[in-house]
């Protein structure tokens, strides 16, 4: 009982900052502090007219979509290899692929910055951010896809091949439908991570910033803070919707693969 109270208090601690977002997004004052002064939807209106914000959101959406697709493709390869094959130095290779999970983001950012700018002399663009985001998202995709690929019976594909399907055909017609919920769930998670990522994007963005980099710029100007609160409210609502869909699909995928629910994304 005491533990339950503690756990609920802990949840309140986790949600406290997010709960404040809508409070200030609808507050009719330019200063983000108590006491509140009145209700307004002006800050949301300002979001609609801000051109540079729209460009930043466009960049972020492009990066997030490409990252979701590419990291999920890499994740499928790794999860399938991990779940269905035995091969030399398997544990070492899988551990190496999962390593970006614990690598500090600033290290990923500066090391890629050195390679791209100083060694190759290329310019920075949305693609440099995509390359880095795919690196950090792939381990998360693998963690989710493992749930879908585990306990998938390899003999089902073999049966399809015995009946005349090619190796890829067997994968497409037998395995793919079974792991599809996991794939979509993995894409949604990668999309959410990429859309929100700041540290790497700050180092690697070219002339036109991503949305978090743009928000970072706004945080320096007290007058623009209520707009940031409004934007944040929309983002939080959007990520909660995406994550809920991802979670439902992930569970459906686990159920299709016949794995008992263990819970959690990681």
């Amino acid at each position, binding site marked *: 009982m005491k*533990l339950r109270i503690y756990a609920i208090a*802990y949840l309140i601690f*986790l949600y406290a900052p*997010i709960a404040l977002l809508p409070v200030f997004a609808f507050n009719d004052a330019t200063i983000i502090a108590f006491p509140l002064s009145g209700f307004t939807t002006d800050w949301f209106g300002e979001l609609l007219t801000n051109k540079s914000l729209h460009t930043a959101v466009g960049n972020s959406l492009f990066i997030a979509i490409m990252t979701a697709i590419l990291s999920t493709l890499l994740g499928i390869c790794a999860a399938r290899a991990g779940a269905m094959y035995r091969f030399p130095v398997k544990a070492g290779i899988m551990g190496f*692929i999962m390593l970006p999970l614990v690598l*500090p983001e600033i290290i990923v950012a500066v*090391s890629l910055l050195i390679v791209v700018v100083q060694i190759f002399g290329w310019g920075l663009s949305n693609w440099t951010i995509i390359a880095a985001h795919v690196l950090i998202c792939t381990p998360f995709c*693998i963690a989710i896809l493992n749930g879908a690929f585990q306990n998938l019976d390899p003999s089902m594909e073999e049966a399809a091949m015995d009946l005349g399907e090619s190796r890829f055909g067997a994968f497409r017609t037998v395995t793919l439908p079974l792991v599809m919920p996991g794939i979509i769930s993995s894409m949604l998670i990668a999309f959410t991570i990429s859309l929100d990522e700041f540290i790497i994007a700050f180092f690697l963005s070219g002339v036109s910033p991503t949305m*978090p980099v743009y928000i970072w710029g706004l945080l320096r100007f007290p007058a623009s803070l209520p707009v940031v609160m409004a934007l944040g409210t929309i983002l*939080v609502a959007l990520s909660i919707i995406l994550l809920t869909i991802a979670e439902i699909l992930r569970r459906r995928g686990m159920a299709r693969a016949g794995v008992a629910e263990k819970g959690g994304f990681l």
Partner: protein
Amino acid sequence: MWRRLTATEGGRGLLMVSPPFFYALLLMAVPLGAIVLFSFWTQDFMALDTTFTLDNYREVSEKPIYRALLERSLYVSACVTAVTVILAFPVAYFVSFHVRPERKSLWLFLITIPFWTSYLIRVFLWKVILGYNGVINTGLINVGLIDEPLTFILYNVNAVIITLAHAFAPFAILPIFVALEKIDRSLLEASQDLGESKVMTFFRVTLPLAMPGVVAAVLIVFIPTIGDYVTPELMGGAGGKLIANMIQTQFLALNNAPLGAALAVVAMVCVTVIALVFVLLNRRWLKGRS
């Protein structure tokens, strides 16, 4: 060649794993190598001087500011790790032992949601909570507990620790939860049947068995926190800047990539050595018990 590779299970497995493996090799291992290489070079205004030298490391070890920043960073990372893991353990324990199985994933989902939502804005909101006219100060003044706003909770190291502990909470809960889930419940019953109290059962059975999860939680919090520069920038004030802020400044503001690279290498080596020592000590502790 292709035929030989696809003929065996091992070959097919290697082929399948090669795209993510080469991606990680090219975009992680090679750039990490480049950082190390760069740290032995020097920046000469706009041009790079590629003669091998230890000058950057000499500068890092001699200038007191780098040493101070590194020590403070390690201290903050250690505090964040301790706070996060200690606060997270009871939650993981509660979800694993006291929540009905069909409700567990709902709890985990609720715990992970805040972690995926707008990191920058979340950090900024801690400023709103801890600030001079913030939630805590106005709340405490209205209740009548204090007359003057508290100032020791913003723009210093404490604020950085609170904010980071909040940001990394799910990272600590999930590995501990997974380890607790794996514990065979009959072992706990056996311990109590043999006369141990509930508290002693926890310390002699549950905790040692949960240790792999705790170690994973420590590593997954301790290592990445060293690389965060957003929280110290927004919450730390003048006295709360960390090594990551200095790395960022060297790369982006001062255009001294080699010195920044040396700082990054030193920070990574420190963190890795501390993490390894921690893992070894923990192994020895677990061995000493059995």
